[in-house]
């Protein structure tokens, strides 16, 4: 029915307009800005401004140096944790509450709290000194370590809950079947759970990496935003919102988006190569 089709289209109209105006158009606009100067003439100047300045180019490396370890640590920690929690555990509600807490409160509050808690006179250093592990307070804020720690505290629970969502979706009968066929715990993990979990892990890694790669408040508040933790977001913000040069700002944002896209594509293709057979989660 012709009429029917029109009506179906009407259902989607609001969100199509929404997507077009608020998401696709700004992207295209940013793309356009990045290739033009303030007079609206086409130019590569904006990209050159970024790539010619070693101080700016270094932000790429700095961002990787922060985002990659933070993501890897979060995911590698989250894998055993979520594996242990896959069938539900005692006190799960309370535990999940504490896990969701830093995710919900957001990076700003966590960073503000970490500044005091992990500062030289904070509880953490007091405690470590009291039990005799350290003599001098550890420097955990206003440096690289602070940013990575801040990211992990925010991203680890996020990764954990996400991985938990995937692994608990794997039919528990598969484990039982494998067990009856003679497999021990490690064998089940390697041959049954892990292969079925890989798509989820790849997805969790990608999302966490992208989140960490665009880190802003954590890098500013917990790090040294004018030096060792000057990440790409800071550079973008600096050009766009402090110098009010949206052209260069957009150009750097485009570079940032491109890098994120490349990393996602690499992870996804690795996943494809690792396990060709199944990407289907076993639900019957």
């Amino acid at each position: 029915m012709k009429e029917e089709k029109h009506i179906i289209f009407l259902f989607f109209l609001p969100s199509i307009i929404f997507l077009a105006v608020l998401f696709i158009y700004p992207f295209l606009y940013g793309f356009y800005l990045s290739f033009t100067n303030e007079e609206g003439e086409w130019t590569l100047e904006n990209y050159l401004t970024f790539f010619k300045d070693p101080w700016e180019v270094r932000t790429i490396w700095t961002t990787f140096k922060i985002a990659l370890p933070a993501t890897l640590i979060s995911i590698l920690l989250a894998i055993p944790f979520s594996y242990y929690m896959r069938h539900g555990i005692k006190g799960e509600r309370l535990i999940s509450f504490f896990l969701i807490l830093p995710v919900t409160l957001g990076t700003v509050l966590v960073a503000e709290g970490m500044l005091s808690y992990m500062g030289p006179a904070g509880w953490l250093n007091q405690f470590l000194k009291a039990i005799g592990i350290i003599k001098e307070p550890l420097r955990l804020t206003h440096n690289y370590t602070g940013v990575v720690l801040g990211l992990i505290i925010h991203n680890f629970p996020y990764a954990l809950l996400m991985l938990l969502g995937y692994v608990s979706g794997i039919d528990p009968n598969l484990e039982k079947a494998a067990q009856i066929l003679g497999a021990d715990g490690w064998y089940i993990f390697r041959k049954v759970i892990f292969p079925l979990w890989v798509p989820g892990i790849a997805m969790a890694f990608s999302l966490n990496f992208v989140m960490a790669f665009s880190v802003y408040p954590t890098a500013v508040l917990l790090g040294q935003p004018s030096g060792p933790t000057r990440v790409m977001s800071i550079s973008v913000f600096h050009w766009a919102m402090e110098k009010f040069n949206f052209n260069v700002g957009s150009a750097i944002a485009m570079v940032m988006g491109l890098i994120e896209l490349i990393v996602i594509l690499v992870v996804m293709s690795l996943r494809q190569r690792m396990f060709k057979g199944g990407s289907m989660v076993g639900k019957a």
Partner: protein
Amino acid sequence: MEIQRDLHTFLNERNGVVDTVKDFKEIKIKDLNKSFGANQVLHDFNLNVEKGEFVTLLGPSGCGKSTTLHCLAGLVPIDSGEIYIDNECIDDGTKGIPPEKRGFGLVFQNYALFPHLSVFNNIAFGLQIKRLSKNAIKEKVQNALKMVRLEGYEDKYPRQLSGGEQQRVAIARCIVMEPMLMMLDEPLSNLDAKLRIEMRYELKTLHEKLHIASIYVTHDQQEALALSDRIVVMKDGKIQQIGPPEEIYCQPSNLFVADFMGFRNIWPANIKEISSENEVVINVSGFELTIKNGSIKKADYLNNLEIGAPVFTAVRPEDIQVGNGPVNSLRCKSEVVEYLGEIRHIGALINEDVRIDLRTGEAGEEIKSDGIIEVWIPPGKILLFSQEGDRIL
């Protein structure tokens, strides 16, 4: 006997694999108890399964059938009780042999095939853990595929298979391990009606060939009757009756089993007269029935029954005869006539309080709804139960 070759000889005769299957006589389950929280799902469960026997656990959903299988498999720890293979205790509630060492097989209701592995690797999964040689694995998988008639499916993935094919792969994965005991948890319930009957037939054929001791769980009485050597009827975690299909079908030991086995006419009644040891007259609201039954289940109980004591009586629809009989003649008014091909199912009213279901063959052709029909019930076909539901006669 040639026909009764057992599984491992069948699978091994051509590849000369060393006999690894433990020989055993029977698996004994003693006083098994299991609770989930406050909910006791198994009460003092006792069962022996002999080598080569096909036993079915039959009961409505939630009666503890699946839990029994999972306890036997070692997937769920038992609270108390013992499980023996001959005289060797494999689980006593404190320490149990882990599932992977019991040598039992389990076919899951949803098949639980590994979605990321090919049919070959699914079936070979357990053999690879045993570290058999590549050739031996190949040989065994081929044989198992042949048994379930899926030759040539090695390289397919579970998602490419139909429900029935997945079912067969699951069975192949189980039998290839040459288990002492094969457990099947409602294996046919996810298939459509036609396929279910086909697969039932194949399961039976397979069992005739391999003679693996099997415990089969179902809620479908037809399946249980068709497949089993013995049936265990369960309700609320308690065994109601154990016996061969004929016995369960014809001589239910209580009202629940009778109801489950198709005694659709269950009426409350009162004792009118106890004529002899095996002849009783009862009063069902408004009419009398004479029961004369050869098997007396509870003679003591019967002797102590007083006149007027409340009881229950049960009759199968197909045992009710149309026409005029020597005893137990009844007149009823038919309400509904359902044509079912060979037979007709008639729902009728004897009086305002008592409904009767009967099945007729050709004799029912003339019966119309709203017509008056004469029926009679042979005294030997009526069962008598105590008020608590225990079989008396």
